[in-house]
């Protein structure tokens, strides 16, 4: 099912072209939106929400054209802005309930739903406290609840894990995953490629207002051939590597002290024999996947001057 389709979408922001003839066709799911600073990620989100008007081209979200559909489209969209959001003097539950009412829920429904989504977001008893006094983590949870309270079919999350500690980050990503499992599509805009690797099905990479890369994460990560990462525990460091080299295998340095070797087929007892013969023990052996970072860095123009 098509979630988002743009055709030659051009959007100016200030006096600069932030999106240039962008044509996209994205299926429903949890999608990572990536790009260096100034690539046009935020501009895309704001255009979908109707905050910015395209100067050329068109876009359709959930089958509705942007711009004209305005409120009808936003009824089905949820937005998690990057910057903090609070209404001075309102507690978390009041803020989320208000967002629900503005989102079209009757007052009683809005309050009940606000409690439900705040519970889901993990805010617990803190929901009766003022949002302006919250820690970053609790503010992010409130924002998530605000973006979900009117039950959107598609949520746009702008850096939802920024400012969170490892525990908070893991929980936030877990929430994103759960939303996706309920059939809500997610566009996750972030600088943290690892977040995308852990929750997204597909990736859209923008660079300088243009599409640089788009595809399913599993396909992007696939490395052709039988390349494996291997780590051993050995009595004398370097022996195993030497033995591998002597047997004529292609070896590269991998991450975290691992070696990357290219085999002709799946690993066989040969590797284990080699290890034993050189006084080593295989501790890690895994098919190598290309990292998103590697692809990101090769797809974008690294030397371009960046602003914003």
């Amino acid at each position, binding site marked *: 099912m098509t979630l988002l389709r743009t055709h030659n979408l051009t959007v100016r*922001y*200030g006096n600069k072209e932030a999106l240039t003839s962008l044509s996209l066709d994205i299926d429903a799911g949890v999608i990572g939106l990536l790009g260096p600073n100034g690539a046009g990620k*935020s501009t895309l989100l*704001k255009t979908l*929400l109707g*905050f*910015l008007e395209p100067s050329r081209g068109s876009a359709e979200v959930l089958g509705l054209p942007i711009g004209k559909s*305005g*409120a*009808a*489209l*936003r*009824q089905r*969209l*949820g*937005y998690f*802005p990057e*910057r*903090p*959001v*609070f*209404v*001075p*003097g*309102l507690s978390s539950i*009041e803020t989320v309930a*208000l*967002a629900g*009412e*503005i*989102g*079209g*829920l*009757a*007052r009683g*429904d*809005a309050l009940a*739903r606000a409690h*439900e*989504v705040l*519970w*889901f977001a993990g805010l617990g008893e803190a929901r009766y406290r003022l949002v*302006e006094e919250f820690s970053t983590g609790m503010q992010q949870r409130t*924002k998530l609840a*605000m*973006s*979900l309270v*009117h*039950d959107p079919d598609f949520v746009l999350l702008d850096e939802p894990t920024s400012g969170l500690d490892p525990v908070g980050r893991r929980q936030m990503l877990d*929430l994103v995953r*759960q*939303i996706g*499992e*309920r*059939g*809500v599509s997610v566009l996750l805009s972030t600088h943290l490629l690892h977040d995308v690797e852990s929750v997204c099905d597909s990736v859209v990479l923008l660079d300088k207002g243009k599409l640089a890369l788009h595809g399913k994460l599993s396909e992007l990560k696939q490395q052709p051939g039988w390349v494996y990462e291997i780590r051993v525990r050995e009595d004398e460091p370097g022996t195993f590597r030497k033995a591998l080299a002597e047997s004529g295998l292609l070896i590269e340095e991998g991450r975290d002290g691992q070696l990357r070797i290219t085999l002709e087929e799946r690993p066989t007892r040969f590797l284990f024999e080699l290890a034993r013969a050189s006084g080593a023990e295989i501790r890690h052996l895994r098919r190598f996947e290309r990292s998103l970072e590697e692809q990101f860095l090769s797809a974008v123009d690294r030397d371009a001057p960046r602003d914003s």
Partner: protein
Amino acid sequence: MPLHDLSYQRFEGGRTEQLARSLAIARMTTSLLLKRRSFLLLLCACWIPVIARAAQIYVARYVPQASEFVTVTARLWQEFLTQQVEYLPVLLVALYAGAGAISTDLSSGAFVAYLSKPISRFDYFLGKAIPVFLAILVVTLVPALALFGVYLSVANDFGVLETAPLLPLSVIAYSLWIGLYFTVFVLAISCLSRSGRVAGAGFVALALGSGIVLSGMMAALRLPSPPASLSMIGATIDSAHVFFGNVSSGDTPYLSIVAMTSLMLLSAFVLRRRLGSAEVAS
């Protein structure tokens, strides 16, 4: 006994009309205002002239000796309303309720959060305008109607209303006019700054300053004092003559109406441009 699923759930209920969404913003803004004791005190202070006027009505009826210089005519209502403007209650209430109304939303990020919901920018404006408008009516229309109540309860005839049957309509129309004028203007100032204080200072400077600076300049140049229509407060007072049907006693009442309408259109233009611009939505 069933097992309940506590994970993320979709919502099955119905949706409200567009207007209900503006009203939600208006209700929340109003309740936040009413939580502030200083605002309630301000409203009370703004009712002091009402007590004086009620006393005037009472004295005119029950103290025969005073009837020569204390009378009750249609003029009382016009004077009461224009004095609510001249002695600043309307201005202070608009300042308190309106100056920060949009600027705080811009600085706290609430504006972006509201606009990402299924409402238009006009719905948002409406939600912000209703509380300011109502607050102004609380110190104009409501006390003016209350004075009718006092008058009817102490007078044994309908004297004033017999001579001026349209007086209640004049009172209502003029109050709504003042309310609209100051609401639109203060919100236009509010949307121009992210700081409620700056917006408040700007509002006071323009509302009071326009008259003071102009008269000062004219006096310094030894010119006759300027027409009322050129100052905000002057124009508001002057325009009352049109509503109360005594145009001849005004300065340039029709011109004042035109000046006020122009300022409202300008304010509406500013609001439209600013609330629709990309920069406030970031």
